[in-house]
């Protein structure tokens, strides 16, 4: 399947300085304000952040799922295997959507067509992208359902979405998204609408399928538990920017941004040795109609300094793969809180 190899050291997907805005009655909303990240083959990148931070818009803009107008990609690039995909639907003669990149969504109950059988819906990308006959595609759909661990797949393929439970529907969605063996699967809050036991099963399934197919996964979530379980790399987003990025252990155990710290303190834990009260992050995210001049988090940040309000901080690399976008990491910062991780002095 890898007709084009990403052999020159470049990543499978490379997103550079992506910015997206929307025209609304209230003015222009700058939903994504310069986001860069890369995804390696076979790895999982988690994008974490609260509602409205721009994480869904980021991936939907790559997939061309943003209605334009009112949406607009104002800058940036996204290169899949070295080829630009923003504003395009085909690279190297292959359709991006559904073929190179598969996508699953938050609410499986509403994300499937109620008047089409599950099998037909899974068969559809195969008919569209691979030119399979209906029969061949339908048989492949049954095999995909089996792969997604749906019992009695042949019978289930002839049923309609309303005959499935939420967890089953999400399995069907996954089967549909991986039908054409995409190199990347984008999972936009895949477990948010499901109850906890089903969540675990769906995450297991995603991991199994990733191992079998070698695809990369971009996982969008606000659940740090899901991140810890699934991710290789984590990007923490806030107010349309990535504020911290690193390997999962870096971000969890060597958190270097006050927002990441705030998220961790707001996360419940079942470790009795870590008994602490959940601490919500006070306040609300900044108004993206007129984004703050300085750091987006400064109004809620317990360590905010004067400069935070006035100028954007730069990315400070703590290790080669771990950076934080915070003034506290500046060489001349007077304050180095104990809870945060700082670059070790050489």
């Amino acid at each position, binding site marked *: 399947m890898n007709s084009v190899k990403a052999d020159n050291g470049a990543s499978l997907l490379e997103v550079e300085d992506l910015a997206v805005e929307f025209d609304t009655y209230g003015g222009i909303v700058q939903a994504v304000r310069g986001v860069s990240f890369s995804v390696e083959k076979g790895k999982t990148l988690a994008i974490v952040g609260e509602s409205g931070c721009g994480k869904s818009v980021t991936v939907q803009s790559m997939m*061309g799922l943003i209605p334009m107008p009112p949406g607009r990609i104002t800058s940036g690039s996204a290169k899949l295997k070295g080829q630009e995909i923003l504003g395009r*639907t085909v690279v190297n003669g292959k359709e991006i959507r559904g073929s190179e990149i*598969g996508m699953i*969504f938050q609410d499986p109950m*509403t*994300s499937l*067509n109620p*008047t089409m059988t599950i099998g037909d819906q899974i068969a559809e990308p195969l008919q569209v992208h691979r030119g399979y006959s209906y029969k061949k595609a339908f048989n492949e759909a049954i095999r995909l359902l089996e792969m997604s661990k749906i019992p009695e797949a042949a019978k289930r393929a002839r049923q309609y979405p309303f*005959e499935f439970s939420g967890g089953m529907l999400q399995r069907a969605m996954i089967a549909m998204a991986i039908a054409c063996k995409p190199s990347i699967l984008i999972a936009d809050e895949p477990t948010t609408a499901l109850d906890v036991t089903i969540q675990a099963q769906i995450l297991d399934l995603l991991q199994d399928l990733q191992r079998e197919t070698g695809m990369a996964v971009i996982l969008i979530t606000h659940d740090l538990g899901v991140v810890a379980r699934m991710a290789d790399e984590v990007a923490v987003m806030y107010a349309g920017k990535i504020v911290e990025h690193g390997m999962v252990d870096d971000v969890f155990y060597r958190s270097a941004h006050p927002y990441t710290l705030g998220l961790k303190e707001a996360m419940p834990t079942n470790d009795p040795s870590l008994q602490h009260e959940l601490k919500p992050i006070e306040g609300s995210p900044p108004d993206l109609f007129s984004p703050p001049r300085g750091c987006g988090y400064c109004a809620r940040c317990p360590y905010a300094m004067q400069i935070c309000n006035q100028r954007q901080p730069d990315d400070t690399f703590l290790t080669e793969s771990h950076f934080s976008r915070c003034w506290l990491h500046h060489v001349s910062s007077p304050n180095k809180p104990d809870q945060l991780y700082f670059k070790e002095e050489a």
Partner: protein
Amino acid sequence: MRSTMWIFILKRLVQGIFTVWFIATATFFAMHNVPGDPLLNDRATTDAIRANLEAKYGLDKPVMTQYGIYLGNLLQGDLGISFTQENREVNDIIRDHFPVSAILGILAVIFAAAGGVLWGALTAIYRNRWPDYVIMFLVILGISVPSFVVAAISQLFLVNVNGLFGTTVLPVAGWGTVLHMLVPAMVLGLGTMAYLTRLMRSSMLEIISSDFVRTAKAKGVPPARIFAKHQLRNAILPVITVLGPSIAAITTGGFVVELVFAIPGLGRYFVQAVQQLDYTVIMGTTVFYGAFLVFMVIVVDVLYGFIDPRVRMEY
């Protein structure tokens, strides 16, 4: 088709028979309470003739007995003899004139449904752009202008067109060929089409922004296929729901158009009968129309099941 579906149809038919019985009963007693007397005209002069006529129609018997006779005849499919037209059974009137009304009505319904779905989908796809504005303006016109005005204007238009070509392109009135049917059917279906367009537009707008359409886009399905396979079938459901009542509106509203275009349909007899207090014709046509509409609603319900699998399960 599942066997449960046949049970569903059977159930609806039994319900339908009750509905028709209710219509028949209500009409019968309503007619009895209408002031006036069909035999009180110039022809029924002497008391002897009057008594004979009353005996013939059973009008000398108590009301409940008459009701019994009426229901008994109805069950045998005998709707009686017209009071005002010589030697004409109501059955004959229906047999002669209903097919004309039915063809006109069916054409109008097809025109209204096809037009409504098409224009509605178009306005939704081009929402807030000029095709939307133009069509929605015409829709408001179609809803608010009464059909006899549209009928008259279209006749005037036909006269001018025929005059322009110096030959009869489309006949202005009358009945007989397909050409006679086209314009009256359009006029008859226009109001319903406008109504269905609005319905389809709002339904389509909802579907366009739905999650499963986004899923289809994420799968890379081309727009034409998304429209045909994902949007249309789901957006059309509310339109089908109101199609039953729409058929009622069109068939009963047909008499105005039939009158203007001089079409020998049943609607004209229906109205004439009311004016002349022709008991048997009024009751016969009312019950017949009622039965026809009940049947059409059942047909629409079954059709709905074919399109929406969720409904099929409830059969």
